[in-house]
């Protein structure tokens, strides 16, 4: 990329902490609209969501494996959204990253953008002593392990789901740090017979979500050639 030789550009990071999915979805849509008309610059949101299942444009409730009544009982929300992909889970113990980025202004293609999000997660996982990789044809980040019975198993540790309108991105990547595995078992993610894995199942001691977020921001800056700077909600709303 010819742009990577330029000096790092400053990109704002808005840390939302723990927040409900719907509230952050509305915030993303507002920020996306403001970015699209040039009222704000590119920025990155990080958040830890309350439990929720979201279904992407090509997804289906058929891949939800439990009764909706059970979701009600457990206080898990479910909604259809605009991002690409099928059903996925967000919840406590998961780092969610939403770049709101004008791809064209940065000379980035869709594939390049997704590749760089994956690359960031792979480097963060290496920082956590986890060997993770891409799986051709299956966007996301995966961990291959040899089970006790010698069978090979590939589990998903980070998911991708992006929306690009007016060449501006929203939605993004979710990295499982210490996620409730029972919640994940309620879906057939991406409509594939895929199981999810968290950092917490692979290393000990388990890094906190704050530590992983810090590493993610460092690697994100490195991979995209940005200098990330903390911003407040008032700066962009």
């Amino acid at each position: 990329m010819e742009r990577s030789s330029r000096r790092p550009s400053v990109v704002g990071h808005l840390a939302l902490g723990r927040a409900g999915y719907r509230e952050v979805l509305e915030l993303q849509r507002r920020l996306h609209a403001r970015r699209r008309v040039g009222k704000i610059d590119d920025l990155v949101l990080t958040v830890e969501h309350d439990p929720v299942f979201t279904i992407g444009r090509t997804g289906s409730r058929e891949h939800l494996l439990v009764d909706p009544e059970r979701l009600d009982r457990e206080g898990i929300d479910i909604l259809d959204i605009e991002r690409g992909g099928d059903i996925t889970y967000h919840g406590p113990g998961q780092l969610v990253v939403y770049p709101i980025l004008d791809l064209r202004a940065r000379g980035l293609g869709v594939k390049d953008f997704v590749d760089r999000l994956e690359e960031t997660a792979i480097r963060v996982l290496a920082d956590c002593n986890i060997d993770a990789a891409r799986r051709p044809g299956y966007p996301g980040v995966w961990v291959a392990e040899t089970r006790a019975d010698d069978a090979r198993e590939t589990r998903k540790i980070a998911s991708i789901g992006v929306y690009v309108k007016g060449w501006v991105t929203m939605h993004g990547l979710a990295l499982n740090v210490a996620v409730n595995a029972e919640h994940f078992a309620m879906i057939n993610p991406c409509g594939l017979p895929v199981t999810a894995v968290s950092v917490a199942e692979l290393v000990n001691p388990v890094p906190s979500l704050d530590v992983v977020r810090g590493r993610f921001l460092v690697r994100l800056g490195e991979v995209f050639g940005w200098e990330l700077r903390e911003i407040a909600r008032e700066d962009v709303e």
Partner: protein
Amino acid sequence: MHGSTRETVNGDRGTIRLPDLGEVESVRVVGWLMSIGDAVAEGDDLLEVETEKTTFVVPAPTGGRLARIDVAEGATVDRGGTLGAIEPTA
């Protein structure tokens, strides 16, 4: 109703092609956000396509009226493929 003719509308300027998304070979059509006959301005959101777990909204390459839809929901479109056409409004 979509028995569209393939002759050029408004020259190549009016042809709606899949934009260059980087190293993307093909996409799947999620659905059109506009109907034939709708007035469109350059940059308006025309249709959604999906690739690489990404929904991409194809912008109108020019203004006018949506004259032709070549690809239906679920169709696969290769890099640079034609999606439809926009004709100028008088």
